[in-house]
């Protein structure tokens, strides 16, 4: 399978076409927008946090397939986690996307591991990490973040 086919593997295309937890929810407690200035990817995340736990994680926005699939997978993975656990997953994901890191998967990341090929496309790493940084910003009470 070519690198390109690995990047746009079935799972990614499927999440892109039918993103999970997509759309602005009726209520939320935390919100942030994530902007990738370079390509125009824009992701809005809406969190419901209760008792230090991510009760609901939704997103909206118009983005490339990588950003859409990553956000879709991230929301699935994140829902129900404590903030502490989420932070751990975020750190692992950053490691997964680090071109200097050789490890190709982390058990805790589940399906998110399918994004591993992204790190071979330097200009796309920010697409994949955008939604994560946006959730991080929302948790911290910031209203927006950019991947830079």
């Amino acid at each position, binding site marked *: 399978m070519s690198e390109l086919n690995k990047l*746009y593997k079935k799972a990614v295309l499927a999440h892109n076409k039918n993103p999970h937890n997509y759309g602005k929810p009726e209520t939320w407690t935390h919100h942030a927008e994530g902007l990738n200035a370079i390509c125009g990817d824009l992701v809005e995340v809406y969190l419901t946090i209760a008792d230090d736990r991510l009760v609901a994680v939704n997103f909206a926005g118009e983005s490339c397939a990588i950003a859409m699939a990553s956000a879709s997978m991230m929301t699935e993975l994140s829902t129900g986690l404590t903030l502490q656990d989420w932070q751990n997953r975020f750190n692992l994901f950053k490691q997964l996307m680090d071109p200097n890191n050789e490890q190709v998967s982390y058990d805790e990341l589940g399906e998110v591991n399918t994004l591993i090929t992204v790190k071979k496309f330097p200009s796309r790493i920010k697409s994949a990490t955008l939604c994560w940084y946006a959730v991080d910003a929302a948790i911290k009470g910031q209203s927006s973040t950019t991947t830079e």
Partner: protein
Amino acid sequence: MMRHEFPGLQQQVHGKPLVYLDNAATAQRPQAVLDAINNYYLKHNANIHRGVHSLSESATELYEQARNSLARLINAPSEKDLIFVRGCTEGVNLVAQTFVRSRVKAGDEILISHLEHHSNIVPWQILCEQTGAKLKVIPMNQQGELVLDDLDQLLNERTKFMSVVHVSNALGTINPVKKLIAAAHAKDIPVLIDGAQATPHIKVDVQDLDCDFYTVSGHKMYGPTGSGILYGKSEHLSAMPPYHGGGEMISKVTFESTVYNAVPAKFEAGTPNIAGGIGLGAAAEFMMTVGMDKIAERDQVLKVYAEQALSEVPGLRLVGTATNKSPVFSFVIDGIHAHDIGTIIDHHGVAIRTGHHCTMPIFQFYGLAGSCRASLAFYNTEQEVDVLVESLLKAKAMFQ
């Protein structure tokens, strides 16, 4: 056309021949430009203007000859009216912070257009913040053309300056700048034209346009990175305060006071990009040898061909369909984000740009986050356009 002169085009990407359609971002350079750069570093490597030794004399001569080549390219009255800058961005900022800043006060207006590149928006926003002036915008229509119906009100007694792009980098639209300049001048309003995307494609004549300032981006007209020109009418350049302080721009310095040098030295503080300026002169000579009429003609042939070829891609929508445009094509394809298209066709050797192309307001107008942009130069071929189209079809297939 002259394709063999551009060594950067003779390479492969992902095992496919490079199809370089990102010329509006930066062009490839002909061998003559690389030779001029290397010749400076190998045979005339010295600082300019201040030396009596031979290398310094010949380096100075090469640099000033380059200024002369550029003056001829844009038909400036004298090479003394040309200031070497890093690129269009520096040119616009320089004019905003010297000429315009000394003329505006709170409540005054600066007029730009909806088609501007960020580099012709943000410097004015910064100036407005500094002075309390207001930014006004000539609107655009669906075709990506300027709407001039209200021009008479937009150019009013509060308007202190107008700055308009000659050719849009995002849509290719060629603006009627001569008409705009005449309208502004009828009310004594000076005008800057952002020529970043014009000089690579069309014959520019600053005297015929009668613009007050004109900016040229060297790296977009086949010259080196970090090179560019700001043309200004000599009466403006003489009267303007200087920009950077430093060496070369002064004729006498004491701690109490300083006497500025004559134009253009007054605006060229510090050691300039000597190799860049010399290389840019070589680019101008190259273009004049090829002939700007020939380049413009070839551009239009490519434009017609590409417009037709792209229109046959199902689901592809061209953004910007001005009657008068250069071979720049912004487009979107149903169901695939521009960013994904860019990555996929890169794997077929095709280099295009995706995103907002530093013109966010244009895409806000269209309600889009961005587009794919294929921007052609005279050295591109019809076959390359065909490869672009094929690669787009493959991208679509992948997302089916």
